[in-house]
């Protein structure tokens, strides 16, 4: 097992960080909060071309997705990447342009189901097509439908940088696909969301450490207080273990390792826990300033919870993991 990035991977990490640092600041995010079209501009100008990562090793995708998560980049890029994981895995021709994925039904679980009203469909208002998964876990169906053929209802969320919709899809959409291939695609997508969560958490931890070094109260930097130091150490501990787990699970999926199913559940659960921990403790460390809309923290705070829920919250993954361990 080797966690050392190759030269190409290091370049991918560096390029991703630079791209988002230059193109995606708090001003852009606040604008996109009010108007999703702002995110479409980012997609058109910069992110569309990065879709070529979609079919490659998931370890490469997660390296890029972490930078995307740090920046809470708006627009349809991540939804498109997630949808492509499913369509590519089952061999449905790649949908061009911005797409999203519809799979969860009334139960809010990312497993194939018969419901025609799909829930938690991200960015449906700014994509042209939807990859729809239906049927049952044993006999899944996957198809691509034009967004115009669906009825959309926006469901207001914590996180308006990635809006969610209820989508009524046409009945009996799609063709029968290999269940194992679908699981593979969904596992890749789950890891990409997990990596976004790591990016969110890492931004918050870095920002909180930097702020604790600068902010002076009682005549010294607040970062010198042990109560605050331990809070940040514990957040860093949870974040670093989760980040390593996401990398391990990605390598396991790329290698078709028999351990991959358990690893993906553990990775998503830990990434969600880590991001939520980092934004909560990060907000506390920032004090009042982090509570204001002018600060860049509130978007990350909301994203941490929204992305934890996406593709199943931590608790759901732990229960699935328990099934693999105990049944």
């Amino acid at each position, binding site marked *: 097992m080797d966690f050392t990035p190759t030269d190409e991977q290091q370049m991918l990490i560096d390029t991703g960080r630079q791209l988002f640092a230059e193109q995606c600041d708090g001003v852009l995010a606040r604008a996109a909060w009010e108007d999703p079209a702002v995110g479409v501009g980012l997609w058109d100008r910069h992110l569309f071309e990065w879709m070529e990562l979609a079919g490659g090793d998931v370890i490469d995708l997660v390296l890029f997705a972490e930078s995307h998560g740090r920046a809470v980049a708006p627009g349809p890029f991540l939804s498109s990447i997630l949808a492509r994981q499913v369509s590519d895995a089952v061999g449905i021709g790649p949908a061009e342009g911005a797409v999203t994925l519809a799979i969860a039904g009334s139960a809010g679980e990312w497993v194939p189901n018969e419901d025609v009203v799909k829930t938690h469909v991200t960015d449906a208002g700014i994509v042209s097509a939807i990859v729809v998964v239906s049927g049952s876990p044993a006999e899944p169906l996957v198809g691509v439908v034009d967004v115009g053929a669906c009825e959309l209802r926006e469901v207001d969320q914590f996180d308006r940088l990635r809006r969610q919709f209820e989508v009524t899809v046409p009945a009996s959409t799609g063709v029968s696909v290999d269940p194992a291939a679908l699981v593979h695609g969904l596992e890749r997508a789950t890891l990409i969301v997990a990596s976004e969560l790591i990016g969110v958490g890492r931004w918050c931890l870095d920002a909180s450490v930097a702020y604790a070094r600068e902010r002076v109260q009682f005549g010294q930097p607040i970062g010198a207080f042990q109560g605050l130091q331990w809070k940040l150490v514990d957040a860093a501990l949870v974040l670093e273990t989760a980040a390593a*787990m996401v990398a*391990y699970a990605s390598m396991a999926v790329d290698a078709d390792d028999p351990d991959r199913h358990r*690893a993906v559940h553990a990775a998503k659960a830990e990434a969600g826990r880590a991001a939520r921990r980092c934004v909560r403790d990060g907000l506390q460390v920032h004090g009042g300033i982090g509570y204001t809309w002018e600060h860049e923290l509130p978007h990350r705070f909301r994203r941490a919870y929204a992305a934890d829920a996406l593709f199943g919250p931590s608790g759901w993954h732990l229960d699935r993991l328990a099934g693999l361990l105990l049944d």
Partner: protein
Amino acid sequence: MQLTADPADEAFRAEFRQFIAEHCPPEALGGRDFIGSGEDGPDGEAVLPGWAREWQAAMFDHGWMIPSYPPALGGRNATPLQTLIYQEELASRGIPRSLHFGGYAIVGPSLLEYGNDAQRQLAPAAIRGDTIWCVGMSEPNAGSDLANLSTRAVRDGDTFVVNGQKVWTSYAMIASKCFCYVRTNVDVAKHRGISVLIIDLDTPGIDIRPLRHITGQAEFAEVFFTDVEVPVENLVGELDQGWRITMGSLAHERGSLWVEGVAACQRAIDDIIEMVRRRGLAGDPVVRRRIAECHAQVRSMRALGYKGFASFAQGSSAPEHSFMKIAASEMRQNLYELAMDLQGADLATVDPDRSEQQGRWQGAFLVSLAATIGGGTSEVQRNVIAQRVLGLPKG
């Protein structure tokens, strides 16, 4: 990034497995926590059983005691990755290398690094376990603040005269030598006036009293020194330069020190799953959630350990490792406590007829409490991480 191993390294693994199959005594298998009774005869059998001595000697003789060392020192010039493989093979079976950590892991390597020619000659026997050493570090007023130690050594002609007290000194009651940190200078900053002396424990003026701990048993002791005369040639390294010796033990194994703690956690989870099934608790949603949480956390720790190892093997500092001790030691306590809770009202029962495996979990829990105290408390570790890894200011 990849998940593969080299054929040469797999051959190394296979060879070690073969050695274990042929030489490992049954008493060493299964990851039990070994605690001597302390109520011992002169042969020390109850504190350090014969099988453990023979196993350590066999490891040394076959080049498996410290694989990264050359054959004369009980090794085979193994690479860092091979050392990691070696640790995994031992830890996954719960096999201890030695029951007295101090000799092979602290004294031997320190003598090799800081000792003079004569002192270096003592290293092989320390590593093989032929000479039992204790390490005199902690004192009543020098725990986490080790530099505060006050056991005094005063030069008098060709000897140092030592007065003072050590405590929590493992295996002192059966050791023949003590690698002892003493104060040789009171006029300088406290960590600049410390030296290391080799003290033969049969020197007049030494009183060793076994110290029972929370388990009810004893593997450590209090050691009292009253006008103990130590020849000046027993000084290790330079006078007043002993502090740096506290920093270095088996530096080349640092990349894989975490393996044992994480493997102990993984073994505990496997055994808890077995117990939960046997006791009909496998359908309980609360139990299921707790087990899955622990499993996810232990697997994540393991991933972080490997990630740190990758940096270490490339010669970078690996901040990951400072997290590993805290994470593994605290998780171990949580797991043992969970296993106790799963026994319902028998959680505190250690009766052979009523308790799970004769109170194995209860005993392991008590033993595991030492892991967040010894070798740097979790609190001191957090301070160190805050300042050295996160870069926060010193409080």
